[in-house]
């Protein structure tokens, strides 16, 4: 009987612990998801309801002013620091009153004399909660989660690529556009160049005949192409490729063999070899 009581007490304790760990894991997971969707994350204290913190922001029952206690995530261009007042447009203002403390997961809205954001989500900080007095721990968790965001962006890019290859650039040359598809003269002319890439391995997509591909890329530094990768001979890396839809000629002879032509146009479509393990890991997901 005595053993049985201890056994059940232990069982109950384990259940509570497991349940608590599950709740904690779920909270962390929700928090991570919110951080991924948010460009600006901060904790703060509500100072005004149905108000805006600077001129030019449309004031409504859904806008509140929050005094920033701690900035957890923001792009470097944005000026935001402890003590600043931020306008937050809430999805539902009923959960907030003056003095409410919360972590706000937000997206940028209006940038003027101050910052206005739109709520993606929030987490109320209860004054008697164990985490209330430990913002540093919360911040550390968020910073850790932030590292996963670039993975998320990279994952999206990998998903939209037709091929992801590891390769080495053996040749770079200007592509003389055939007269039949000659582009018109514009400031935004891409000035197409071609990189012949010797494919060492295919991380995504089917086999590549002859292990060579031609990758077209804009050589020009016009505003339209400023974020497109520029290739150099002997460059080695991981390349996210799409079937060529920009230059209108989709195959070409390399070494007497007709090979497919791809483009590599987006920011982050050319990655250093140091990212290989990360890319392989993301492609498995």
């Amino acid at each position, binding site marked *: 009987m005595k053993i049985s009581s201890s056994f059940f007490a232990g069982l109950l304790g384990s259940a509570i612990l497991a349940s608590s760990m599950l709740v904690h894991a779920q909270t962390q997971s929700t928090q991570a998801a919110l951080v991924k969707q948010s460009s600006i994350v901060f904790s703060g204290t509500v100072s005004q309801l149905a108000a805006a913190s600077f001129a030019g922001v449309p004031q409504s029952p859904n806008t509140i002013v929050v005094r920033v206690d701690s900035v957890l995530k923001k792009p470097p*261009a944005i*000026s935001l620091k402890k003590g600043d007042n931020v306008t937050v447009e809430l999805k539902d203002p009923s959960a907030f009153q003056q003095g409410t403390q919360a972590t706000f997961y937000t997206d940028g809205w209006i*940038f*003027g004399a*101050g910052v206005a954001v739109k709520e993606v989500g929030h987490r109320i900080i209860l004054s008697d909660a164990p985490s209330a007095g430990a913002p540093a721990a919360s911040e550390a968790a968020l910073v850790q989660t932030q590292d996963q965001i670039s993975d998320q962006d990279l994952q999206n890019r990998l998903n939209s690529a037709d091929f992801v290859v590891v390769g080495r650039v053996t040749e770079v040359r200007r592509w003389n556009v055939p007269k039949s598809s000659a582009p018109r003269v514009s400031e935004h002319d891409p000035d197409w160049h071609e990189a012949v890439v010797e494919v060492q391995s295919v991380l995504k997509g089917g086999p590549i005949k002859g292990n060579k591909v031609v990758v077209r890329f804009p050589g020009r530094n016009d*505003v339209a192409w400023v974020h497109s990768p520029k290739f150099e001979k002997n460059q080695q890396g991981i390349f996210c490729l799409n079937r060529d839809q920009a230059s209108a000629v989709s195959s070409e002879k390399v070494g007497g063999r007709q090979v497919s032509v791809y483009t590599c146009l987006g920011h982050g479509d050319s990655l250093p070899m140091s990212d290989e393990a990360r890319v392989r890991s993301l492609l498995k997901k």
Partner: protein
Amino acid sequence: MRALAAFWMRLLVFTPIAVITGTLLLLKQSPPETGIGADRLQSPGTLRPAYASPIQVKLVDIIPASLSGETNQDSEPFLAVQTANPQVMVASAFTPNPVSSRGNAPVYVSQDGGNSWLLNAITPVQRMTCDITHAMPIGENHPRGDLHAGTLACAASITLNESESNDVSSSAVMNVQSTRANVDQPFVRALGISNSDHIYVGVNDFNQPNGHTATVDVSVDGGVTYKSFSIEARNTAGQDGPSVRPAVASDNTVYAAFFGWRKFDGKTATSDVVVVRDDAGGTGPNSFQALKDPSDKLPGRIVVKRTSIPWSNAPTLGQERIGSTLSIAVDPNHSSTVYVGWADRGSKGNIYTVHVRRSTDRGLTWSKADLPHTTIGNATNIALAVANNGVAGLLYQQLSGGRWVTHVVQSHDGFTTVQDLILATVPANTPVQQFLPYLGDYDYLLSVGNEFRGVFCANNSPDLANFPQGVTYQRAANFNTKSLTDGSGNPVAISIDPFYFSVPVIP
């Protein structure tokens, strides 16, 4: 007792004097400051004597305080003013969405006559436009609209969107009304007529047959429908030049100027400067054919025949590219008077020379030579406007002595006598270009009441010597150390910013 009374009397007399003197001394010694928060904005009327201009010029770096950490090349500016309420303005530049590569490209909005600006991500283009112009006519009577924009989206192909916003302060993304690919450099002008917005978008449309690419898209129903008119009637070198510029007068007269490329070898365009006119707002059966050239009887008056225009899509004039700067302006109240300005190959020693000519008979005949004071070497980004009193305004940027010098010139007599103000004179070699165009393929000038308003881009070093008429920064800047910070004291690199200005029209 008397001594005590005398002491208190002296104290009473000298204390206010000491306070006033101290305050004046402090004011004199205080460095000009800007920082987070708009409460330190200096209006022209409050500029301190050391920095004030005898002419009431307003010059504002429009990067908001909350973006003090940004280092983008915010080049190629444009400006729209709400005609009914000129306090409301929209400016644009190659400014990316500050928080997300998937977010919408932003515009700058002012609701206080240009004293303060904020960034609102409402264009239909993802992240950053690669061309944007706009106008705010009053036909539809929206207090903070109608903004009509022509934007190019930068992607594998370049796509034009013609779109509108009824409230530029809202977060609603602009409504795309018309879209097509394979066009270049949309340039929007508009006029509100009878409760409807008439919109004119100059584009270089590669979809037009026979290389007659100079085109004006016309909408007389607020952008609900557009009709495209090729305005080129002659043989071309396969296409016209990128710049196609409309100008609209209040009597519904519409002009458009373009470069009719007759020959092109990759480095030089042999080009006519052509002006077309329509007397019915582009709604008649033979739109834009009112002017015919006496030489060939074809539509389009040739202002200058076969001039040589250098085309360089690489840093050539300082760090700027050249090849297609063009502007046209009509007197809003006397549509017979119209000015056209362009740049071509200059005389020896000049890479690129700006010219201005005028017609006073609805474009039938033009001044045979450049107007006085308007042959300007090593200059680009010409923008013309005509004020209500007939005064012509000319904005341009000149490379001179290793600096980019931005001028705004006014004249009431066809530039025979001029008022020439330098708005900015900044180092031309810094910052290093991130992409082209460095300052922009255009800037912009327009007239509002008794003001010329405009935008240009320049190196943003907070150095008062660079801005002879004075300047106001919204972003965190220290004019003593001539440095920028991110608002938290951390240094921020110099970059290219858009500047808004207002200059009173001369009598």
